[in-house]
């Protein structure tokens, strides 16, 4: 037996780093003039996608919702699927930042910054959909908000869509604050290291006068902890509220009490998959293997496995309760999902979300970046398919056989969806160019030297 404690995890930063190397390597990505061509390529792809989104949304505003494939009975299509998908993806960031912070999981420091950025961008993409999917977005933009008006009309507070408005906007606000507060010390570092005056000025303004004084650090720690405490319930509440969009409805396949936990687990699942999707290529492109170590990847794989199993539990029990309830509509709904016209989507979903992640039981796969990337892509697709199942297959055959219908997306649906992916990519590439994608000051605390000194290394 060795003397080391058995639980001692592998380090979250590769050996050989000092405060300076950490700072230089991470800040250097932002402050250098030279950037890899892959960055330009990525930005270009994202930009083109965003332009496609702009076109699709413009045409939507000109012509109306009818350019999409939605109809009666399937009143919600790609827009709501994408909304829930993006919101789900947006969960990992806050989870990593807040909950793992409170749980003192120090490995989170390498990934929390870009995971939070990802959250913000995902919520931006998500937030677009509830607005543009309405028939009259120019009115929906403010009529869903409770504001005093001469007509004395308030929103319908019993409607889950109103809860959505609050949940998502709160989440966006808190996530933004959390992200920004966490950025302040790093912005100061960049200010100090920048060579050109305008950039120094810019970062100077953004760093809000941060000088690294002890009082600053004290207040920062306090604020950050408070925000983490504030965000933690949000992680659970946002997707719970989003799941209410469905559970409050009476449609078989929607009206289910299992949705809130199952949605939250699914969101974390999707979020971690997206973090992995971003982290694996990033660490290679920017040579961040030292900071984004195998331990990080493996941990994320483990989280995916756990949440994936919860999601799988949800699927099993959805089917079980349909049978157990002996409710003919529920039973038909499950049967129709499995063997109806959209059967291929269901089985693809099972493959992506249940079968493929089982590979993560194996350590060699959990520690293979390529395999993790591969599996995370499956999960990304699978989680999208899950929302497709919930939205479309529940609606397309509900109660009265006479009003059963079909849904197929149009090119505008697809353009809007890939457009938001483009927007996300563009925002993300801009982010890694202008802000440190890994928290410099927190990484510095991971350097062995910080530990040697014993206390906090600020």
């Amino acid at each position, binding site marked *: 037996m060795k003397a080391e404690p058995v639980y001692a995890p592998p380090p979250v930063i590769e050996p050989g780093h000092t405060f300076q190397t950490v700072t230089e390597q991470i800040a250097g990505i932002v402050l250098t003039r030279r950037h890899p061509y892959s960055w330009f390529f990525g930005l270009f792809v994202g930009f083109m996608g965003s332009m496609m989104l702009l076109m699709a949304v413009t045409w939507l505003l000109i*012509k*109306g*919702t*009818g*350019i999409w*494939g*939605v*109809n*009666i*009975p*399937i*009143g*919600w299509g790609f827009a709501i699927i994408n909304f829930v998908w993006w919101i789900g993806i947006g969960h990992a960031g806050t989870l990593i930042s807040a909950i793992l912070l409170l749980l003192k999981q120090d490995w989170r420091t390498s990934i929390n910054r870009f995971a939070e950025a990802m959250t913000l961008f995902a919520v931006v993409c998500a937030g677009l959909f509830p607005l543009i*999917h*309405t*028939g*009259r*977005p120019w*009115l*929906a933009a403010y*009529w*869903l908000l409770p504001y005093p008006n001469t007509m004395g*009309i*308030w*929103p*319908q507070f*019993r*409607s*889950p*869509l*109103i809860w959505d*408005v609050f949940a998502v906007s709160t989440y966006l606000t808190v996530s933004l604050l959390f992200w920004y507060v966490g950025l302040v010390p790093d912005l100061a570092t960049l200010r100090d290291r920048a060579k050109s005056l305008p950039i120094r000025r810019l970062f100077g303004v953004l760093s809000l006068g941060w000088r690294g004084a002890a009082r600053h650090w004290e207040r920062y720690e306090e604020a950050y902890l408070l925000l983490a405490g504030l965000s933690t319930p949000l992680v659970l509440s946002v997707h719970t509220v989003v799941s209410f*969009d469905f559970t*409050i*409805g*009476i*449609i078989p396949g929607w009206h289910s009490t299992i949705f809130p936990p199952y949605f939250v687990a699914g969101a974390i699942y999707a979020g971690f998959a997206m973090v992995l999707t971003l982290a694996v290529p990033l660490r290679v492109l920017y040579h961040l293997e030292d900071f984004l170590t195998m331990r990080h990847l493996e941990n994320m794989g483990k989280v995916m496995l756990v949440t994936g199993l919860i999601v799988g539990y949800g699927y099993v029990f959805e089917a079980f309760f349909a049978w157990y309830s002996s409710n*003919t*509509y529920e039973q*038909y709904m499950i049967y129709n999902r499995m063997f109806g016209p959209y059967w291929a989507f269901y089985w693809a979903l099972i493959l992506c979300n249940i079968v493929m992640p089982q590979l993560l039981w194996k350590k060699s796969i959990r520690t293979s970046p390529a395999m993790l990337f591969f599996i995370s892509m499956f999960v990304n697709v699978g989680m999208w398919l899950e929302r497709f199942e919930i939205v479309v297959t529940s*609606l397309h*055959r*509900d*109660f*009265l*056989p*006479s*009003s*059963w*219908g*079909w849904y197929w997306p149009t090119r505008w649906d697809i353009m809007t969806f890939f457009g938001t992916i483009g927007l996300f990519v563009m925002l993300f590439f801009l982010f890694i160019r202008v802000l440190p994608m890994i928290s410099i000051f927190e990484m510095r605390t991971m350097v062995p030297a910080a530990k040697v000194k014993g206390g906090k290394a600020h």
Partner: protein
Amino acid sequence: MDASIKSRLAGSHGRVYWRSLGELADTPEFREYLHREFPEQASEWNDPKGRRQFLKLMSASLALAGVGACTKQPTEEIVPYVRQPEDLVPGRPLFFASAIPFSGVAQPVLVESHMGHPTKIEGNPEHQASLGATDTFTQAAILGLYDPDRARAITNRGEIKPWGLFLSAMLSAGSQQKGRQGGGLRFLSGPITSPSMAEVMASVLAAFPQAKWHQYDPTSSDGARAAALAEGAAGDPIYHFDKADVVVTLDADFLSCGAGSVRYQKDFATQRRITEERKEMSRLYAIESTPTLTGAKADHRLAMKASEIEGFGRQLAGAVGAPAPAGPSSGATDPASVIGKWVAAISKDLQAHRGRSLVIAGDYQPASVHTLARSINQALGNVGSTVTYGPSVEAGPTDHAASLADLVRAMDAGQVEVLVMLGGLNPVYSAPVDLKFADKLKKVNLSVYHGLYVDETAFLCQWNVPEAHPLESWGDARSFDGTVTITQPLIAPLYDGHSAVEVLTTFTSQPDRRGNAILKDHWTRAFAGGPWTIRSADGQPFKNFDAFWRRALHDGFIRGTAIADGGPATPLSVIAAVPAAGAPAPTTPQAATPPVTPPPATTTAPQPAAAGAQGGLELIFRPDPTVWDGRFSNNGWLQELPKPLTKVTWDATAWVSPQLARERSLEDGDVIELKYRGNTARMPIFRVPGHPQQSVTVFFGYGRQKAGNVGNAPKNAEAFNAFLLRTSDAPWFGNGLEIAKTGERYPLAVTQEHHLMEGRAPVRVATLEEYRKDPKIIEEQGETPPRTLTMYPEYKYEGYKWGMAIDIGSCTGCSACTIACVAENNIPIVGKEEVARGREMHWIRVDHYFAGNDDDNSVEAYHQPVPCMQCENAPCELVCPVAATTHSSEGLNDMVYNRCVGTRYCSNNCPYKVRRFNFLLYQDWDTQSLYPMRNPDVSVRSRGVMEKCTYCVQRINQARIDAKREDRGIRDGEVLTACQQVCPSDAIVFGNLNDPNSQVSKLKLQERNYGVLEDLNTRPRTTYLAVLRNPNPELEPASRSTTEH
């Protein structure tokens, strides 16, 4: 401050005030500015020339705006139905009694007119042929009036000409023909029941003894006509379903086809409605080929080839002891065979109900079947009770196929110099293909076409005269029961339209008479002395003509002219003018004998029933249930109305049985090529359970090329034209059809794809026997949760509490409610692509379910009209984020269009899926001619807004205003929803649930009342009365077998 200002200041004397440096500088710009300080054009007032110009322009544009906004009132006197014109209150509609002819036969209507715009058609409740209801075609006539594609101007070879030029052209043609006694003059029209037009026709034929009048209507029943002509003066049957306990149809679709279907539906439904008082219902056996709505309503339906119907009829005649006319026998009855069993059971049932039974022959069966039906009815003693035979309401009835063939022969021989086609017949499209009408038309020197559209025939004719819509013209026509019904204009002709009689009158000695003069003149003389017995409602003769005429216009019809009241056949003769002495009508009829014989009574030889090549499949022709023979092709309401039984919109399909489709491995929408007697056509197929296995049914009305923007067939559908296959020797069915799969697929826009109930019992059914034994049987088919499931106290409705009950036992699925709702509520047409996407906008749809096995020929079919359920616990209300749909204090589930932002959550959450969303801008905002059609009481919805059935809240509010003004409550029956008002079966009843004596409250107390999906605890306000069937125990379950081999 430049030098010029200084110099100006220097040059002034005394004090100078200036308001600005600009004024000081006195630049031209500043002066211009001062002028323009006032509204634009104001300075023109100072300039006499400019002012005159300005005023001219202003008044012209104001006048033009006026022209655009208003429509001319007709100059002739029309009498409102209920309220006097001086009561015309802006915002309040007036109702005028009129008639919309269909194939010449009047459909009596009341037309709602808002400030001179007709907006809605209702049935005439006092008229025996309507009793307040109409069919779909009559409902849709309002769109036909405002159709922007209508023919707009008189043209000669495409050039616009004034009426005067047309008149002189006709006069000169007439004078040329005069010398030859009219030998080269031919008229072609549909059947004429109008006494005034028949008289004009008679006078034209008198003036041109050699001229001929041909009649053709592609969908009228030559079989029935031939059988009637063979009987002499009293050959036309009128059925009385209110007296019939057992009805047997021989391929007859009396519920949805034919001039009397509206009244027949009403009587039939009455005879089958089980209420607290009535415990008996009639029984219907349908022996038919193509599945029809009548077959769907039958207690027993037997499918067989159309050519086998006659054989069945003979066996039935034999079984009831009726003399069967000579003809091919279908062999001895094998009592053990399926047919034998049916014949035995039906004949036993018929004989048990002598005098209270009825056998009806189908319009599309040959004369021999009609003769058989008459013979059976006579043997059973039904004549005089359930069926009466009387004279024809058509003037000069003749065999249409022969009449048209006669004309084409003459055209081919070059004998036709002048051909006048009246009433939008469009024979180029609809004539039997072997006549080659289009080719022969080229041999006519002078062809005149009179119709609503510039259609296929109009394109080949020299003169086109736009037809005035029935809502624009004066006229008369007889309804199916013989009542003379007056057509009065609601609006001056929108375009340069003339009625058929006005065109015809150009060949008389008094050309250029207007419709009003012709009509009034006719009835002035007929009042003085004619074949009619004109009496007022109390049976007394009228004091003078004016009293009579006002009454006739007010009522919309002339009492005492029905066949049942002794009305004569429509005379094809001229009534001699009586010296005006103000004398009451003399008792001796003074009808002059016709100076000429009516058009040659063409041969009434029985049609060759199943002529043509043997072998192959049987081809059956049918008019399309919504666009008929193509005459409604350009009517978007009818195009978008889901066709009964298939729910296909916008297209024709060839119906095949599921078995045949399996044999030939065909799927719905597969395009097949139909080869029949050397002609070919193509059509997408549709599988219809209960269709005879070795037959294919094709429908007329599609493949139009010159119908208009709505009706023109797209390139890939031009061959979907059943007329391409129809030959004159076998107009309705024949053997020898070959079909071949082309491998092409054609997208069909279907509004309902699933026709099985999946064990969910949206339609609850029981047999009369079961229901009598245990009325709970209906309730047990579903589950009603207790009312204690909610924490909230129940809302107390203090005033009105609206509700609806729909008797699906009465509903025939005719879909008139859907069209009525479209007309009343300004519902847009969305077009085929949008329907295919699932975005039709109908607020009330008619669901259709098949029960039983697909392979079974006697499948049961049910129809269920589904408007908004106005749920008490409405799932839509709580999910709307902006509270755009809320519950009213009278229980309505109100939709606030202004507030709606279009999340569509309400529709997703509606278990009945009755909400409709404006995915695109469906409402036509551009076509000016459609503006006056819209109901001003109902908002026109724009893009992005949800809408749904409102229980016609505008009608409720109107009644509320009336009631408040008279300080009383709204009476039961005062508010009729549009669907309720039009329903020929009285299946829909609306009213106040707080009034225990209202009709709807009473219906809801019946034990067969149930709510659809009640188990969801939505507590729907629209409930249904279950279907009760009355099967013959002898045929149950044997009825579920087939005669096919």
